[in-house]
């Protein structure tokens, strides 16, 4: 018997022709990109412009549940997300694009629960019916990272690069929920992912391999025990720095808040690392020619412009 591991799934299983052909996508920015990481939202829109795709923001969508509401109720995240998917369907969209690892994982988990069980789908639709909505089950949730690789393609991206990163050594930092659990994500191997590495290479950087890239940033326990969360940042950034990283690239704003915000607090135990952290669309948009001053790089606590000046990417 052949056992089909999630990483063996053909990529086609995750591709959608409809949205990809029309280049119009439902867009779910998530809470953080609208609150403390507005630079992520802005640089995503600038990147979409460069790519010639239309991201149609689902403005009435709610929070995905943020991995936290599961702790109080087993159904609420599923039904909240069903409401969001119904909104996408009402706009004729079958793709919901996210820019946060946690949104990706939890929205995909909710969708899987709905699509795997008629009972759960009916339960959700019974509640949605109270305000006249219905989820038909046609939506697929994907991260912008996957869209870049599947729908645009690394070759096309390479052609579009006008400002290659001059070999800047960039450490990928995936963020747990875009890869784990594999049964929910499964777009690539959770243990040996390489999409970020491929992307870094395509835009002219040099990816740094280190064990911390698939580990946890500690964001979700920052308010539970600050020092433990800071240690998790320090441990991972120490590994990245020791492997020669000059900067970090993450597809997740929660990881960004942790890595950008807590390196200073972890220095006592792990030594100073001070690695600037880029949001995924910031670095891609820069390579594709979006002016650096439009990317909100000045909003980061560890200023990424220093390394960009050193690398003569900006003056």
């Amino acid at each position, binding site marked *: 018997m052949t056992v089909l591991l999630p990483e063996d799934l053909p990529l086609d299983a995750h591709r959608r022709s409809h949205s990809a052909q029309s280049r119009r996508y439902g867009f779910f920015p998530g*809470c*953080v990109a*609208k*609150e*403390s*990481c*507005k630079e992520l939202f802005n640089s995503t829109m600038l990147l979409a412009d460069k790519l010639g795709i239309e991201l149609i923001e689902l*403005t*009435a*969508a*709610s*929070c995905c*549940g*943020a*991995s*936290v*509401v*599961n*702790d*109080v*109720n*087993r*159904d*609420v995240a599923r*039904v*909240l997300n069903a*409401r969001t998917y119904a909104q996408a369907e009402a706009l004729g969209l079958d793709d919901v694009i996210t820019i946060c690892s946690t949104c990706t*994982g939890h929205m995909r988990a909710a969708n899987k629960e709905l699509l795997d069980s008629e009972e759960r789908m009916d339960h959700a639709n019974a*509640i949605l019916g*109270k*305000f006249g*909505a219905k989820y038909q089950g046609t939506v697929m949730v994907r991260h912008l990272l996957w869209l870049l690789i599947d729908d645009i393609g690394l070759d096309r991206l390479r052609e579009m690069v006008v400002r290659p990163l001059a070999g800047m050594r960039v450490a990928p930092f995936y963020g*747990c*929920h875009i890869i*784990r*659990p*594999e*049964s929910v994500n499964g777009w690539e191997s959770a*243990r040996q992912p390489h999409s970020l590495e491929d992307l870094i290479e395509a835009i002219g950087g040099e990816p740094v391999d280190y*064990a911390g890239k698939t*580990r*946890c940033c*500690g*964001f*979700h*326990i920052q*308010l*539970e*025990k*600050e020092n*433990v*969360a800071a240690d*998790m940042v320090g*441990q991972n950034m120490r590994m990245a720095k020791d492997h020669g990283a000059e900067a970090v690239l993450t597809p997740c704003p929660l990881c960004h808040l942790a890595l950008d*915000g*807590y390196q200073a*607090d972890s220095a006592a135990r792990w030594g100073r690392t001070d690695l600037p952290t880029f949001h995924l669309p910031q670095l891609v948009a820069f390579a594709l020619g979006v002016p650096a001053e439009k990317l909100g790089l*000045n*909003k980061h*606590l560890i200023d990424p412009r220093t390394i960009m000046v050193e690398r003569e990417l900006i003056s």
Partner: protein
Amino acid sequence: MAKITLDLFRFDEAVDEVPHRDRVTVEIPETTTVLDALEVAKAEVDGSISFRRSCRSAICGSCSMNINGITGLACKTPCNTVMNADGVVKVDPMPNFQPMKDMVVHMDPFWDKYARLKPYLQPADADSANDRERRVSPDDMKKLVDVANCVMCATCYALCPVVSVDPSFAGPAAIAYAYRFIEDVRDGQRKERIAQISEDYLWLCAHCYACSYCPKHVDPNDRIIDVKRAAIKDRVLMNERGPRHALVVSKTIKQTGMLAETEVILGTVGRFNVRGLLKVTPLALRMVARGKLTPVEMAVGGTAPMLGMPSQKPIPKVDEVRTIFEALEVPVS
């Protein structure tokens, strides 16, 4: 047959100051498990190579180790799935444990946390005459079967990033096993057990799903969430940060449709917890200085809830979100 080279972590705490590595080459079919390869190396090349094993079929849970950077049961890992192009398989002890001899580690911290659970049934009527069966319906038993498959191999504990920086955290296996007793209808210590595991930092789980790599598919990640829900349902230690955080997140989503950051921070740390707030203030100020948060957002987020108002502008059609919360009777405080 294939030549497979085992690149082994070697260390004997009785004599060695620091570990070293040995390379041992054995000739075996490449579908042989890493455990069997170790057995051949020990029998034919170097009898001092040490590792734990018993059943060789993923039932005893003895042989978890780190194989080419991936922690799991050696008896469930065929060499050809992990060896590199040169036929090398790197074998190390489980991370998060103190090595004793080669792949054998000190398991005490793991067992200590398990022992603290009092991992045996404690019926409410334990003192009464044992004159009848304590029956469990198939539905009640179904909830416990997955966790009962745990073989205590400690793979999840070795993979847990929280344990790696704070060994006081109970770890995934102990929390999953706490669930096994909390949800057992024959047990009479539900609240006490929830309190015990909460005090062993249940809420310090970082939601990272590293424990979803469980070789027996116990998937402690989901059981940890179940135990948190039980804590909120039974209202055990509700004044701790963990339950407060979950509930304030729930509350802000119900009120605004979004997770309102400022209110979540104040609600979790405690609006009147001056020491706690001082700890998060430097980061908040740095964020304001960089324009990540505006002073207006912080002021509104901080004061509006006290006046019974949403801490930020609600999303369009927020009434629909509130309908969902009400239909499911989701707790928000």
